[in-house]
């Protein structure tokens, strides 16, 4: 098991290098000079040259890239071009916020989605099934920022129940509810459909039919036998959802003034803030890889047939 984990992590190294290389190339083929941006709308050539030199942007590109990789080995992400804050610190702060948001969105989507999906499957073709699936499908069909503004307008402004954006340090746990709902809607809908279809599949399999034939109560059949197996695809999707939640958070974080990593990285794109961009992309890739590793490991827990060599 541990050897498997180590092997998987080693396999991730080329992915990291690829991700940073793509970011780097994209950054330098794109027009726009970070030094020029720092200098402001009106700037003289000398000032721009000084700023370039300060950040090492005057060195040849391959040199810059290898210097970056070298620093990365020492876990030194550098400092933001724009704010001079160490990247690791900026990302650390934002990661916490994103993690809280993603966690709540994840919980909401699993609870809502899986429950609805299973009930739908058990009561296939019922009114509940149809309406749950229609709602689930509508949930994946609306732009998240559109839902976000409407939620804010209704629950924050008109009803005044929840804060109008902002972070938990300001408004406590109440602040996370609306953004988590906005962000969790799409995964909830996916989970619902996924849970339904895999549940339907499992219910038809022989061991379930046998269990029924043995005279076990319906609820016991569902919870003891079917659920466990039906959850496998849901767990698979959970790994992908992490990626979705991280990047889907870009827009949600902007609307809800949530200090997350998506907003940080998008701002870094606009600011040509390469160190922050690189750091952010690496961290998001790392989370994605870890999440998928976790998913693979959790198979073993759910499905005893799977073993790791």
């Amino acid at each position: 098991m541990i050897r498997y984990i180590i092997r998987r992590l080693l396999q991730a190294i080329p992915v990291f290098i690829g991700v940073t290389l793509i970011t780097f190339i994209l950054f330098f083929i794109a027009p726009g000079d970070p030094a020029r941006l720092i200098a402001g709308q009106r700037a003289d050539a000398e000032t721009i040259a000084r700023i370039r030199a300060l950040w090492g942007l005057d060195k040849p590109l391959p040199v810059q890239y290898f210097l970056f990789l070298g620093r990365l080995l020492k876990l030194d992400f550098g400092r933001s071009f724009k704010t001079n804050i160490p990247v690791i610190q900026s990302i650390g702060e934002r990661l916490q916020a994103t993690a809280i948001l993603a966690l709540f969105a994840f919980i909401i989507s699993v609870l809502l989605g899986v429950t609805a999906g299973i009930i739908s499957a058990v009561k296939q073709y019922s009114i509940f099934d149809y309406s749950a699936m229609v709602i689930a499908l509508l949930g994946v069909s609306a732009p998240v920022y559109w839902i976000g503004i409407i939620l804010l307008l209704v629950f924050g402004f008109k009803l005044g129940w929840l804060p109008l954006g902002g972070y938990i340090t300001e408004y406590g746990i109440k602040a996370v509810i609306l953004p988590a709902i906005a962000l969790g809607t799409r995964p909830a809908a996916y989970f619902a459909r996924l849970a339904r279809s895999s549940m339907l599949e499992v219910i038809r399999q022989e061991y379930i039919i046998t269990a029924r034939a043995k005279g076990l109560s319906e609820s016991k059949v569902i919870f003891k036998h079917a659920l466990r197996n039906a959850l496998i695809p849901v767990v698979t999707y959970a790994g992908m959802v992490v990626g979705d939640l991280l990047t889907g958070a870009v827009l949600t974080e902007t609307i809800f003034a949530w200090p997350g990593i998506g907003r940080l990285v998008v701002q870094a794109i606009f600011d040509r803030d390469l160190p922050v961009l690189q750091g952010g992309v690496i961290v998001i890739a790392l989370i994605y890889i870890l999440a998928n590793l976790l998913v693979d490991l959790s198979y073993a827990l759910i499905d005893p047939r799977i073993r790791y060599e």
Partner: protein
Amino acid sequence: MAIDIGASFQTRKPRSLWRVAWKRLSKNKLALLGLGIVIFFVLVAIFAPYITPYPWNEVDLSRALQPPSWKHLLGTDEFGRDIFSRIIYGTRVSLQFAFFAQLISISIGTLLGLIAGFYGGWIDDLIMRVVEILFAFPFLLFVIAVVSTLGTGIQNLYLAVALIGWAGVSRIVRGQVLSLRERDFVVGAHAIGASIWRILFRHILPNALSPIIIEATLGVGGMIMLEAGLSFLGLGVQAPTPSWGSMVQAGLAYMRSCWWYPIAPGIVIMIVVFGFNLLGDGLRDALDPRLYI
């Protein structure tokens, strides 16, 4: 979607498969509803110029921001343009983008998936490594980076999608190819000396088609949402061309005084994406023999 990667294939003739699939689809009321929605909007897109009551770009500042009336069913925007007409014309813009973007990513993905799966070895390794990298690279951020740096506009959107959007499809197709490669009809074709491309396109591709179709249908909705998301950041289709996303974005600022302005295009997005998802789900049920209901 990951769970269907390994979908086993029944050794029916393709034609009968399609017939069976259609029969199943026609029994699925929700899927038919989806199909109906899709067809309706495709027709709207095709005939847009003939059914808009006003030209989509007719600016008249003196009639800006009027509420809905018989003259302007959904009111007018901040330039006095008829919102209803712009939504109709926007159908063309949004659907066109979604279709072509899907076409591009599906084509590239299918091609690379075929190659990776069929050749195996280092080619497969290379393509799959790139796929892994692209998977770890957040899609939306990548598109934002490409579009914001190269400039907004439909070509750059296509470029961004072409660069990264193919990863998921190629993985699915590769899985299909791997499961088909050792089948009799493929091995047989190989034995009689058929060219590799012929084998790929005549024998393997048709048999791998159903997951591609499902993925493509579900993906159209995703592309509409992508355009909408980019519009929110000002990176969508170039103004003044109306896309639903850019209309929602422009309208949100007027939410408090003219709520119909952002709500109308938003609802249209919901309905259309809903339609594609219903249809995609229906197709999955119909084409995936495992879920014979």
